[in-house]
């Protein structure tokens, strides 16, 4: 076996060098690559098993060998969807949101009341006060019964 490249050394060989170099080459040929001891081979074979045992189950699941990468994208999307739906369904409104909604409703009902009053005046002017009361009072009574906070909101508005 020759050692390629030994001839392109920076300096030229002189005297005994070529002879020594050849002898060195033949000595290198004797130095074979040592076989790794069987104990080391066993240790190296055990590495994948030991490394996987040291990981959590979820990391093992994400190992490319056990789950192709393309599976991960839809799996992740599905998981996010489930979490999103769960959060949407189970979400309880906060106190501030309830208060804001009540305020909005109160404003809306005050418009309805004003509209009712205007309508009453129109009816009164056309049909008289009796008919007006017969139409308006049941509506007002019903609204107050189902939306007890309307009166309260009206008081709050007026204050």
């Amino acid at each position, binding site marked *: *076996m020759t*050692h390629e*490249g*030994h001839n*392109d*050394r*920076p*300096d030229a060989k002189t005297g*005994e*060098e070529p002879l*020594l*170099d050849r*002898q*060195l080459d033949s*000595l*290198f040929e*004797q*130095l074979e*690559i*040592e*076989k*790794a*001891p069987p*104990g*080391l*081979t066993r*240790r*190296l*074979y055990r*590495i*994948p*098993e030991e*490394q996987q045992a040291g990981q959590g189950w979820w990391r093992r699941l994400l*190992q*490319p*060998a056990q789950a192709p990468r393309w599976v991960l994208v839809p799996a992740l999307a599905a998981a996010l969807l489930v979490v999103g739906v769960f959060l949407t369904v189970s979400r309880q409104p906060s106190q501030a949101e309830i208060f804001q909604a009540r305020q909005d409703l109160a404003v809306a009902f005050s418009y309805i009341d004003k509209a009712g009053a205007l309508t009453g005046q129109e009816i009164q002017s056309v049909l008289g006060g009796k008919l007006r009361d017969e139409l308006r009072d049941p509506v007002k009574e019903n609204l107050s019964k189902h939306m007890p906070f309307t009166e309260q909101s009206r008081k709050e508005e007026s204050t």
Partner: protein
Amino acid sequence: MSRKFRQWVDDYQDQAWTLARYLLKDPAEAEDACQEAFVKLWKNQDRIDPERIRPWLMKVTRNGCLDRLRRRRPTEEWQEWQRADDGPGPLQDVQQHELGQWLKHSINGLTEPYRSLVVLRDVQQHSYEEVANVLELSLSQVKVYLHRARKQLREQLAEVRP
């Protein structure tokens, strides 16, 4: 993945072992260094170009060995190891097979990076490019350093050969 790793073990364990043996001398420590290198290979297998597994592994093995040597010889021992070794000394009437043993000792006596260069290039027959990659040297540096290493070995051989 494990099967591929097993194939890498079969293909490269002897080379990693030989390099570690030359660098560390202590077989138990050489085994540990090899194991560490292969654990790193397992952990980084997705990031390594499959064509570059061998130089990568050789580089990691060598760096691991050098780290161990630094830890093992924090003061004067490490400095002693860094100094040029005179080798095993002249031998009288040595036979050819004994010269083989002598060469092993002489390689062990070389300083870094000469020792790694000789092991990778002359013992393991890696290409110059691969040796340059493992040792993070330029191609011309590899050739110059290898020339120096072999010059040292030649000089020692001239003293001991029959």
